[in-house]
């Protein structure tokens, strides 16, 4: 049985129509495609709705991913702070080099007597802290004359698991990456207490740094003080100085290890009252994570090369 054939005129006509559509301007093509997609939309919505009814998607467990992303974010922040600190330092060195006047005699290079050194410490958890304070951990050694400092045991601040045994000293800075978390307040034999940046007794000189393009512009120097709340204040900044929300607060040269500044935080609020001589600046600390378990302590040690030379 032979099948009925299509008309050759129809074939030619349809081919011509297809060719015309192929050569049609993009505007017409988009219009046609858009109209068809609009026409199909109710059906698509119905399909989607049916799918949702058929298999309600289970709540995805995003916690592991969230945790991994938070960790990655913290690592990136640390790298950024480090790069920012290095940029400030190298920019200052460049400035110094530019202003340096060549002297006919070259000065002999010497090594510093005191060098900064980082040691890693752990923040004692709630349970360990209680046991430590109640001398449970030390019980065995207590009778042999081993005793932790009374000041450390009585303190309410977080406790770090390093003390005099690691040559820690009061006011050593406690860091997380290149950002300052606080400093050592009381040093015991094996442990020490951490004074957070936001502690009302915390005080440190700090300077304002503003990033303009790729330049780090060093601004006014003030006194960073903890408020006892979640933030700090930067006081003693002259009202003539340039301050803006978002400016970063770094350690001053003399408190920066080998000149590499450390980050305290960012300006969250800056107000200048009419007639006032100083700015009122609020600073958000760079490290806001309350559950830090591992920190670094910046301690000052005698340069071993100098010691061995003697």
């Amino acid at each position, binding site marked *: *049985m*032979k*099948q*009925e*054939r*299509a*008309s050759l005129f*129809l*074939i030619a006509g*349809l*081919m011509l*129509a*297809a*060719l*015309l*559509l*192929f*050569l*049609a301007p993009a505007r017409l*093509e988009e219009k*046609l*495609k858009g109209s*068809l*997609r609009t026409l*199909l939309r109710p*059906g*698509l919505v119905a*399909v*989607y709705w049916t799918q949702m009814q058929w298999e309600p998607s289970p709540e995805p467990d995003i916690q592991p991913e969230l945790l991994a992303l938070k960790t990655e974010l913290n690592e990136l922040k640390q790298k950024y702070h480090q790069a920012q600190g290095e940029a400030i330092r190298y920019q200052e060195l460049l400035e110094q080099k530019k202003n340096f006047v060549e002297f006919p005699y070259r000065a002999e290079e010497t090594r510093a007597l005191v060098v900064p050194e980082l040691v890693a410490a752990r923040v004692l958890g709630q349970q360990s802290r209680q046991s430590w304070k109640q001398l449970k951990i030390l019980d065995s050694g207590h009778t042999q004359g081993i005793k932790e400092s009374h000041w450390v045991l009585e303190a309410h601040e977080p406790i770090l698991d390093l003390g005099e045994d690691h040559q820690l000293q009061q006011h050593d800075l406690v860091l997380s990456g290149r950002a300052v978390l606080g400093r050592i307040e009381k040093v015991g034999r094996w442990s020490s207490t951490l004074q957070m940046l936001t502690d009302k007794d915390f005080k440190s000189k700090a300077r304002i740094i503003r990033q303009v393009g790729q330049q780090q512009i060093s601004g006014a120097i003030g006194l960073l003080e903890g408020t006892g709340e979640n933030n700090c204040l930067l006081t003693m900044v002259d009202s003539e100085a340039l301050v803006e929300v978002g400016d970063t607060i770094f350690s001053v040269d003399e408190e920066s290890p080998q000149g590499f500044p450390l980050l305290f935080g960012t300006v969250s609020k800056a107000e200048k009252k009419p007639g006032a001589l100083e700015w009122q600046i609020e600073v958000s600390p760079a490290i806001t994570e309350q559950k830090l378990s591992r920190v670094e302590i910046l301690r000052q040690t005698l340069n071993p090369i100098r010691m061995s030379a003697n």
Partner: protein
Amino acid sequence: MTKALLTGIMLYLILLLEVAVAEHFVWAGMRPSFLAVTLVGWVLREEGNRRLLLAAALGLLGDCFSGGPLGVGMMLCIVSIWLVEMLNSKSRNKPNLLFQALLVMGLYLLGLNGIHMLLAGKTELWVVTLRSSLGTMVYSSLLVLGLTLVRFLLQKFWSHSSLGYAR
């Protein structure tokens, strides 16, 4: 009139299947083409001008959702119908349906993907395009076979039931 309305509804449903449902059938990187399956069905079942018009409409609708230029799929559908008719007219025996189905599907899928690749200027991806087209073709052919089997079994069941009822 009713037939035209039913055909329109069918086209709408096929488009929905192609756009929204086909992605749920992806298996081993292969995605079935419901448009190609319908095209084969119409080539085998319909005849004359109606077959040509349906194929052209299907090709045009496919073009609208393909991301490529308009008219390419339509042309391929018309050419495939014309080729089938040419083969049928020259053959003295009963037309080979399997060969026709494979010819139409192969021409449509390989031709469409190949032309899209050429127009995008990505000729270096010809292996990927060929593999994807052949995968779709195999998957769609299996789908056609499956549907034919289901139809055959249903027909069998229906004829048995009718006979039983008649007795």
